[in-house]
């Protein structure tokens, strides 16, 4: 008999809790690595020196007061979607339907603007739009939640499919509402009367959006951290058995949490149509329902950390846009950079959660990394 036991060269074990400073140091290191890779790739396609790449990016993202405001708005919208998805994720409910929930919220808003814009004054119209959008988003998220709670239907796939149902619904209404006829677009809604447009405060039209999202961020943080609801949904996420045992009504928590998740998505749709775009397109959400998933995940579902992770992604996208405009490259350049950053940060989780041991010659192990 052969007595020697075959031992793998690398041995991976799960870490116990890692100090948060060290965890964030690893994440920071991976982000730096990602930025270096992005710079090298950009430099090789544009003949810029890697440092100049970030110079250009800074100029593109923060170069003028207007650009800073646009960055702030983009940040707010992405953050709002990520925030919306967070309670569901904490409950381990994969809500990939952010895209669709934002779209139906936007659709409800646009419908109110078009049908009620002439009859109601803004002071009543805007709250009505708000309620309609939130209700629509919430309903869109509660459909999969109901089936999940009742029959354990796979929510990842269900919410994903709901996105495209919403997209086609919007496409349908765009044709009904199109103006001018035959253009295939809705155009700016209520351009002359500005009915249903969010008021401009502090002489910038994006300021109100940013303030609203800031308030939502704080509210969400408090909800998740200090409220009974927040506690219950975390317990459901950790173990449904435990939750049932301590008397939490799991069905009700699932539906309630998704109500909230969809409602905030609907709110984002309202902000987009009423506050910034004043029109509706099928690409209104623009993939942010998915990017939001990653923003939330990168921040470990912590609302405050999400500000940083969405800032990073928005900054890179805006910066890449500038580079691609200057060098006549395709606008999708930003998506490639976003992808690279995501892959790097995603893999950093491995080094935070696991530990690698390298086999020593004598067969004894030594901790590494």
């Amino acid at each position, binding site marked *: 008999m052969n007595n020697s036991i075959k031992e793998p060269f690398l041995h991976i074990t799960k870490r116990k809790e890692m100090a948060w400073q060290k965890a964030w140091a690893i994440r920071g290191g991976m982000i730096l690595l990602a930025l270096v890779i992005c710079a090298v790739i950009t430099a090789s396609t544009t003949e810029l020196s890697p440092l100049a790449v970030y110079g250009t990016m800074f100029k593109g993202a923060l170069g003028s007061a207007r650009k800073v405001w646009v960055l702030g708005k983009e940040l707010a919208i992405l953050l709002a979607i990520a925030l919306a998805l967070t309670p569901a994720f904490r409950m381990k409910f994969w809500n990939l339907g952010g895209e669709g929930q934002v779209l139906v919220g936007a659709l409800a808003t646009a419908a109110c603007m078009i049908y009620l814009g002439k009859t109601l004054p803004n002071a009543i119209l805007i709250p009505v739009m708000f309620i309609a959008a939130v209700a629509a988003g919430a309903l869109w998220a509660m459909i999969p939640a109901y089936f999940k709670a009742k029959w354990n239907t796979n929510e990842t796939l269900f919410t994903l499919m709901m996105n495209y149902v919403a997209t086609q619904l919007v496409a349908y209404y765009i044709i009904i509402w199109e103006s001018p006829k035959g253009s295939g677009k809705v155009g700016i809604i209520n351009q002359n009367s500005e009915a249903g447009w969010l008021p401009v405060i502090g002489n910038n039209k994006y300021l109100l959006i940013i303030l609203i999202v800031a308030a939502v961020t704080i509210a969400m943080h408090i909800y998740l951290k200090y409220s009974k609801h927040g506690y219950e949904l975390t317990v459901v996420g950790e173990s449904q058995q435990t939750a049932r045992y301590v008397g939490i009504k799991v069905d009700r928590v699932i539906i309630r949490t998704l109500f909230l998740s969809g409602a905030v998505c609907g709110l984002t749709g309202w902000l987009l149509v009423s506050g910034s775009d004043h029109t509706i397109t099928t690409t209104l959400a623009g993939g942010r329902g998915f990017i939001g998933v990653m923003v939330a995940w990168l921040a470990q579902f912590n609302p405050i950390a999400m500000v940083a992770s969405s800032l990073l992604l928005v900054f890179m996208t805006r910066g890449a846009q500038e580079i691609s405009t200057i060098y006549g490259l395709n606008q999708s350049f930003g*998506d490639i950079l976003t992808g690279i950053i995501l*892959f790097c940060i995603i893999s950093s989780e491995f080094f935070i959660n696991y530990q690698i041991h390298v086999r020593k010659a004598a067969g004894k192990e030594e901790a590494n990394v």
Partner: protein
Amino acid sequence: MFDLVGFIPRAVVQSIPLLLGCTGETISEKAGSLNLGIPGVMYVGAISGVIGSFLYEQSCGGEVSTLPAILIPLCCCLLGSLLMGLLFSFLTVTLRVNQNVTGLAMTTFGIGFGNFFGGSLIKLTGSEVPSIALSATSRVFSKSLPFANDLGWFGKIFLSYGFLTYVAVIIAIIAGFVLKRTRTGLHLRAVGENPATADAAGIPVNKYKYLSVCIGCMIAGLGGLYYVMDYASGVWSNDAFGDRGWLAIALVIFTIWRPNVAIFASILFGGLYIFYLFIPSSSMATKELYKMLPYVVTIIVLVLTSMRNKRESQPPEALGLPYFREER
């Protein structure tokens, strides 16, 4: 009268990217990997093939010979999608990262990659053509059997397609057979149902997961290649591929994880996708509602299978979960 002979070939042409994507996704889902990166992989597969054949056509000045015109894009496509598959399996199997997040990141990256190179290829290579139109390569890809036209409706419905169409059907049949009837398929499904038990039975879990994701991605990538070379006649336009990748994932559920059912289901989906073109009385707006049909049907299937709760029609038990041996 509904023009069935006109309708079926167009539905089939629509269905092939979906079928390839669906077969690929089924293989990786059966081993427990919910690869939401498939839409991105299909873009990467398509653009890799386009880059390969673009460079080839440029180098030989439009005079292409059949064999390299097929092999070069094919190999580039397989290589591109294989790399995406390796990326996904490295991140989710070796590094045990969440599959949903990885998949979505891959979709973002893949679609960006496709559109970026599709939009900038001409500028990057410094060539002087106005747009990417690989008509010579496309002719080779979409060449049907020479006697197809002589056989009337039979030839039109069954024989009027390029070779990739038949390859797709054969791949689906083989995949269905391997998954259902062979030892390899049994092991693969065991890994997807319960990796810990499979591991205890001596099945190399990680190897199966890697292989299933990579093979699945390569098959899905072919779907992208088919779309550009055959369906779109070699013309690349950004975002033209649209949401077909997601539709392929929907199809996996619709067929309840069975590739041989997918052959017919994909034609059904392809038909639903273009159904609106064949409804004479419908307005532009209702056509948009018809496009919703594939997704609505998928949702209904998803709900029904979960309500009936039959064991054969459930998703693989460990779908989407990472496996770590020491966590048992």
